[in-house]
């Protein structure tokens, strides 16, 4: 049994064994020698390719370390392939920064697919690379071929997380299908996002703070669905409204609705409403900034005795 776990399944990401000409590939630099740098092609089952020194940079190379470093991943273009003997010439200077960035996306997608399928293979207790390759053939490659685009199956898998029937044309047996769906759901499920809007409320009429309270309550009442709305005070007169949602559009609509209710309510009482930040996704960085801001405001708002500051200066 122990032996079965030691098997490390490997399979290339795409159907073709070798990259095509002009294709951009992700490589890991193995060793750098006088003539060039030897790399492994991560997407093609770690086969070896070489970046010739004259293909590293268009400009004069002052320090090779700035361009290539052993162990680092690089986006490079394939300029020559010998499929019979397995030699591949690569070029770094023929890849522009924009192309590289664009390609990164595809690589990450393909890598995710690989992880999903490897997980499936593990659950189905595959023992050999042939079985793994067959799985690839039946799923990812089949989709890639039908869409005629490498890495196309990422989007299909993503849809399948919500709508499993989309995998039906693949004609998988039940075990594989279930394992695949499980794995897809684990990896590709939608992450809930946090939405946030910032607004100002003022009311200098007779009802004052009561009017504000009333308006905020009305806003909260707008939606009772799950997950609920939340309103927090940053520092008067600023408030934030947050909610978490799986569907961004739905969440934004919800926040906008609640804000409209608040506006209506406060204006009835002759107060003023002002939106500062429209509803948008809040990242962790935003959260941290908000926390700092609140601390800062709290300090600024603290009541200070008029005498205190003077006594120190005397």
């Amino acid at each position, binding site marked *: 049994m122990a032996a079965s776990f030691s098997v490390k399944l490997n399979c290339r990401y795409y159907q073709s064994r070798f990259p095509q000409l002009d294709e951009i590939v992700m490589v890991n630099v193995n060793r750098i020698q006088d*003539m060039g740098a030897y790399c492994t092609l991560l997407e093609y089952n770690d086969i070896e390719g070489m970046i010739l020194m004259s*293909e590293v940079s268009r400009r004069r190379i002052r320090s090779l370390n700035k361009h290539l470093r052993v162990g680092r991943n690089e986006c490079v273009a394939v300029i020559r*392939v*010998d499929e019979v*003997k397995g030699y591949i*010439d690569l070029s770094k200077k023929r890849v522009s920064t924009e192309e590289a960035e664009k390609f990164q996306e595809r690589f990450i997608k393909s890598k995710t697919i690989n992880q999903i399928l490897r997980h499936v293979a593990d659950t189905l207790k595959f023992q050999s690379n042939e079985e793994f390759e067959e799985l690839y053939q039946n799923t990812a490659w089949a989709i890639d071929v039908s869409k005629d685009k490498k890495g196309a199956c990422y989007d299909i898998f993503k849809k399948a997380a919500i709508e499993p029937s989309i995998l039906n044309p693949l004609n998988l047996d039940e075990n594989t299908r279930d394992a695949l769906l499980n794995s897809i759901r684990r990896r590709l499920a939608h992450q809930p996002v946090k939405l946030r809007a910032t607004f100002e409320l003022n009311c200098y009429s007779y009802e004052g703070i009561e009017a504000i309270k009333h308006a905020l309550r009305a806003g909260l009442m707008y939606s009772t669905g799950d997950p609920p709305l939340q309103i927090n005070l940053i520092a008067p007169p600023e408030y934030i409204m947050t909610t978490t949602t799986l569907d961004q559009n739905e969440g934004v609509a919800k926040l906008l609705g609640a804000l409209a209710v608040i506006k209506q309510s406060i204006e009835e009482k002759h107060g003023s409403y002002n939106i500062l930040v429209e509803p948008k996704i809040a990242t962790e960085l935003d959260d941290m900034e908000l926390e700092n801001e609140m601390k800062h405001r709290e300090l600024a708002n603290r009541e200070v005795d008029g005498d205190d500051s003077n006594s120190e200066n005397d």
Partner: protein
Amino acid sequence: MEFSDKICYTREDGVATFRQQLADEEETTPRALCAVKTLIFFLKGSKDPTISQILESLLEMQKLMEGATNSISVTSGCEIFRRFITLVSMDALDAEECRAKMIHRGIVFYKRCSEAQNIISKLALPFIRDEVRILTHSYSRVVYSLISAATQARKRVRVIVTRAEKAPDTGDDTTSVARGEKMVEMLKKIGVPCALILDSAVGYTMDKVDLVLVGAEGVVENGGIINQIGSYQVAVLAKACNKPLYAAVECYKFIRMYPLKQDDLSDLNPSGAGTLEKNNSTLPVSNPWVDYTPPSYISLLFTDLGILTPSAVSDELIKLYS
């Protein structure tokens, strides 16, 4: 020999061509240049569609030729050749076009290297005064061409040559005649007064010469030289007698190597090379082919890159290899 007439398609073919050249052009062409030429022929015949594969087969070819001669200059020559041809900017995607460019550059390299001896003779001529007495060790093409250039410049030169006996059964191409004898023969042909002495008589003779001039198999990174066995002791004696020792050497013999002691050359001296069996040695000490002369014993190096002090060699070497 022109480059249009020969193409090698296989490695065996390459090695055979190399041996053929060594035999045919022993007098005129240094071994390193024979090797470079073979690499060019081989490059012409290669049908590989990728540059990486071409480079790999060139390297294999180089290894085969190293094995065939056991000469360090073959290594350094091929090494610099391979660097020189790959550093050309190859914008063409087609391997065929790149290969053509590499061949062209290879021929440029070869031509430049074959000019090296003449350049050295020209640069080093001022160091050979009239009526100078020179001690030289063994046979070297560069030393020979320098001396003949000096005589042509109407300088009266007298040369004392060591016999430079090699250990027997080395399997080398020139074992039949001691290399010093060959040198004397050739110098006589151009009318240079010369004498042959035993290697063991170097100390006795050192007083009677003005300078020592040697060739080299290879120049290492610290400016020391690797040369036929016996050079080291000649250098030590020259130093002891305050005679300058000059090494005349082409730049394609610069090699990336940093020996610290004689033992570091054991790769170049095949195991058990020429043990003198008939003497029934009871200690396993071999008679190697080459030795290493540290830079402190060398006054100047005459190269086609200019007259260099040994310490300047590392600078030039880095330039060559980068």
